[in-house]
């Protein structure tokens, strides 16, 4: 019986935008609770209030506001905002929100471009959002060590395209919230878990196989879970985490291979 009060976490991989860990000595309910909280209850910042001053683009104001809301915002580590509804201010203030301004016009942007690109549409991206708070901005998709070195790697999230003569000017207020209210406040793209499979190879039956059959067994697994020892020729489990036995089980079961596995 696992001790539900003492689950163990072993971090396998940790990057700026990714974490993988092994959770053990606990119950599935704990894993699921973690997953559910990651999806719906971790507070983040997202654009919530948009005032459009000028919009002659083809996208309607509501369309634009919706797209702005979905842009992920990243704050520096340790930066804390108040919830707008808990804050003492009347409307919004620096403690509970950040104000983004965006002002893009085709005329200004297209001016500096080379001749052959003059008539091309101008892209309005998340990089055009200017934050009132330097600690909060739209996310970059290039890894942090590359953001400044190579601009083309991180052109920002496209919001709209402007044709000749069009302009877009707006202010957007970002507030703190959780994804229970709207999915734009969800901090994760995916949060998921899977069960580690236990794979045992029936050695008695393995011994009955010819080397060709063993090679075929290793080859046929679509996820390449198994490996073969070069010298002795025995089958061993190489990539246990890749196993999709449940998914591919039926496929394998049609062949006699499945008998090899207990």
């Amino acid at each position, binding site marked *: 019986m696992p001790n539900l009060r003492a689950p163990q976490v072993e971090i396998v991989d940790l990057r700026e935008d990714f974490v993988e860990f092994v959770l053990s000595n606990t119950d*599935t*309910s704990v*894993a*699921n*609770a973690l*997953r*559910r909280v990651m*999806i*719906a209850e971790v507070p983040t910042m997202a654009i919530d209030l948009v005032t*459009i001053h000028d919009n002659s683009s*083809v996208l*309607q*104001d*509501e*369309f634009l506001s*919706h797209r702005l809301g*979905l842009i992920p915002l990243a704050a520096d580590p340790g930066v804390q905002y108040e919830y707008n509804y808990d804050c003492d201010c009347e409307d919004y203030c620096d403690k509970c929100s950040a104000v983004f301004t965006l002002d893009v016009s085709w005329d200004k942007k297209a001016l500096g471009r080379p001749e052959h690109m003059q008539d091309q549409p101008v892209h309005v991206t998340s990089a055009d959002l200017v934050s009132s708070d330097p600690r909060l901005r739209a996310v970059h998709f290039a890894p942090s060590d590359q953001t400044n070195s190579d601009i083309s790697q991180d052109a920002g999230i496209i919001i709209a395209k402007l044709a000749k003569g069009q302009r877009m000017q707006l202010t957007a207020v970002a507030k703190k919230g959780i*994804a*229970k209210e*709207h*999915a*734009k406040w*969800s901090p994760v*793209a*995916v*949060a*998921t*878990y*899977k*069960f580690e499979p236990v794979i045992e190879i029936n050695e008695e039956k393995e011994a009955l196989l010819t080397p060709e059959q063993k090679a075929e067994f290793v080859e046929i697994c*679509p*996820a390449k879970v198994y490996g073969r020892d070069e010298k002795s020729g025995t089958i061993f489990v190489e990539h246990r985490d*890749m196993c*999709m036995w*449940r*998914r*591919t089980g*039926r*496929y394998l079961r049609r062949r006699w291979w499945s008998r090899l596995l207990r």
Partner: protein
Amino acid sequence: MVKRLRHAMGTTALNMHERMDGLLYALVHPQKPMVTTRVLDLVHFDQVPGGQNASIAVMSYSGYDIEDAIVLNRGSLDRGFGRCMVFRKHQAPIRKYPNGTQDKIVGKVRASEFPRGEDDPRWPRYKALDEDGICRVGARLDPGTIMVNKHSPASTSGSGPVSSDFASTPLSYKAPAESYVDKVVLTANENEDYLIKILLRQTRRPEVGDKFSSRHGQKGVCGIIVPQEDMPFADSGICPDLIMNPHGFPSRMTVGKMVELVAGKAGVLHGHQAYGTAFGEEHGSADRVHLCCQALVERGYSYVGKDMLTSGTGGEPLMNYIFAGPVFYQKLKHMVMDKMHARARGPRAVLTRQPTEGRSRDGGLRLGEMERDCLIGYGASALIMERLMISSDAFTANVCQGCGLLGYSGWCQNCRSPEKMADIRLPYACKLLFQELQSMNIVPRLKLQDF
């Protein structure tokens, strides 16, 4: 399918936003379908798409999905799945009348013109008006707001001295939910009257009761909207946008939908648009099911298109493999917001004094013959009396107990006497019938009895 396509919303034409259609439905984020066909290529459906690629799971979930109802993922709706815009045109002609008079538009009404300024209850109606007395582009219109502040002359016919009196005849906004002004056009009609056309825009996210359909005629209304964390998920983290009940398959035999799912899933995994046409295999353009299955296996999925899903609420793996993958879904224009209706008291028809019929006339809900039969069978006579008379067209009539005819004000004109008059309650339609019979030389006589 043709019919359902006609009801689907999407891109009607490339110039759709330049036009002034009476009613236009547009999807906010339309997508080209994951599985296309030869015909769709011929009509360039990729450029004028009419739906979105929903990631679906064919399973039963919660019981709110019986009878073709579908379960929607709230996270997907937040991200724009099924979000649509409704454009509606309103117009106000500025008429010229035979006596030389003409309608006029009165310019901006200011809050200061009202005794209590901005707090005045009459002021919000005029909020959207611009300097020219027509609503401003981008203005929010709440129910009752005036769109065109039009005034019409008091007398419009005859000749002689023309009165300078004008009465307010504004064009006002009546729908229950708010809209925004998208466009205002000043033009003229065939009678050379000025015409003001106003295009209003409404953005709607799907709600319970909205209708969706795949391209195989598998329509269904949304039965429940479930938070993303409650939806089942695959170990890759994918969770469905939409859950469809498997009972829709056996009797409908929509094999095409299953093929679309498998082909679409293979296409997604291999990064190309799949081809679903049933013809032209020799030319090598169509995707064949067994090749799609092979593609699935190559990427480590089951060849039947089924995945192992984990329950989002309990956290345990589901007991069955779930058929899941992308299917192109269309939003149909039958939305509850346009259909919902309720009434307590309200307008009545002049002739019968019964409540009017239909949502557009704020009508009552009919208690029909079958419902009446149920009440009779149950023996709820007082309820029948209430529904069919008291809440409908109850009328107090004067009846003469001597001759059995209707009188009025306690007087029988037939007997020329007030002596034997009595009051009875009956449906107005019944009294109307007696009078209509009388007009045809048939005399219905009422015999009254004490109860």
